[in-house]
């Protein structure tokens, strides 16, 4: 097995790639996580305030449209996190880096949470507007498939004892499932669906500006929340997986000595 420290000595020691080593990423994640959590908390308060008190009543749906401030950021995040997992899975399969598989593991529960939140708020929104909690149209069905992919990823990686095999099997699910993400996103354009088209696209939006502002603030809050919980989860995964190394032993001794 190749020694990580000898590898990083060959490169410039200040390279950002040094954080690919769990030992280096552990303290960085520990420093960044509380900041991200703080930003998430502040932006959630601002976003919900705009959403519930500043944004006007919708001409068509009345007050019920305010679900959008949670529904859309959650749905965006659920798709984005899956793509991030697929990215780290590919990096892990090609470069055999330890951190990349830890990243996929750390991202999955948060992605599943946002995916469930998007489906749940969508059902609650659908009843008063469409007249039904659920229909099997392309958008809703592909989003449900995304939830099953998340759950399948977590179940499979937990079920396999051998860590290397579990990581590789999970990486395959993450990569194969990634094809579903563009299907979710474009489903409302490719097929007739009950779900309406996208209000916000790269070229513009069809929402009043305060409504859009509230939704974007909530979206950034979701990003910050994701970074915070993923950093914390990455830290405990690093300790678990590197528990046989000297530095983790020293780290645990130091933490137990402090408390």
């Amino acid at each position, binding site marked *: 097995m190749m020694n990580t420290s000898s590898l990083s000595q060959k490169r410039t020691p200040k390279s950002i790639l040094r954080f690919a080593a769990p030992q280096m990423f552990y303290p960085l994640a520990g420093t960044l996580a509380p900041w991200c959590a703080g930003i998430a908390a502040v932006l959630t308060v601002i976003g919900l305030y705009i959403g519930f008190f500043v944004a006007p009543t919708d001409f068509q749906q009345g007050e019920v449209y305010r679900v*959008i401030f949670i529904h859309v950021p959650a749905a965006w995040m659920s798709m984005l996190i899956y793509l991030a997992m697929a990215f780290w899975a590919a990096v892990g*399969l090609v470069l055999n880096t330890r951190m990349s598989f830890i990243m996929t593991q750390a991202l999955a529960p948060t992605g599943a949470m946002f995916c469930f939140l998007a489906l749940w708020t969508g059902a609650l929104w659908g009843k008063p507007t469409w007249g039904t909690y659920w*229909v099997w149209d392309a958008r809703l069905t592909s989003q449900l498939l995304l939830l099953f992919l998340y759950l399948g990823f977590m179940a499979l990686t937990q079920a396999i004892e051998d860590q290397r095999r579990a990581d590789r099997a999970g990486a395959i699910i993450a990569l194969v499932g990634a094809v579903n993400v563009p299907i979710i996103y474009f489903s409302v354009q490719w097929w*007739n669906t009950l779900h309406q088209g996208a209000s916000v696209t790269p070229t513009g939006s069809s929402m009043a500006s305060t409504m859009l502002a509230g939704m974007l603030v909530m979206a950034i809050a979701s990003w910050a929340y994701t970074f915070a919980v993923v950093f914390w989860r990455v830290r405990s995964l690093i300790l678990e997986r590197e528990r046989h190394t000297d530095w983790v032993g020293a780290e645990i001794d130091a933490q137990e000595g402090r408390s």
Partner: protein
Amino acid sequence: MKPRTKRLALLGGAAALFVGAIALVLTAFQQNLVFFHTPTDVAEGRAPAERAFRIGGLVEEGSIVREADGVTVRFAITDTAQAIPVTYRGSLPDLFQEGKGAVVQGKLGPDGLFQASEVLAKHDENYMPVEAQYAIDKAQAQAQAQAAADTVQK
């Protein structure tokens, strides 16, 4: 070739094949993935005749008629090219309005009347304050009045 370059090439090749396979499957199932048919599809006989299906479109302006029993509603659903008459017994969603989107599920009768068993409202992706819609309506009404006045003058 370095082992990691080889792995990258293998992964890229497998991904390309997989995406191609999915694209073929989606193209093959294009018809089945349709949640609703348009009124034009139905008028041209492209909708399934025997089994239940859905029609999506706009509720035609001025077409909603409540029958004497109070629970049966008749309306027409249109894509502005074709309109299909629909009859439905039951309660309608709040957003069901003339000129707005709707999806109806049911069977097409031999007389061309669509017997709906379920009516869903389909709203669009526009969100704006009530005042903005009011302003738009007013501007449109003024433009129409102006156009009418112009034709009278000619």
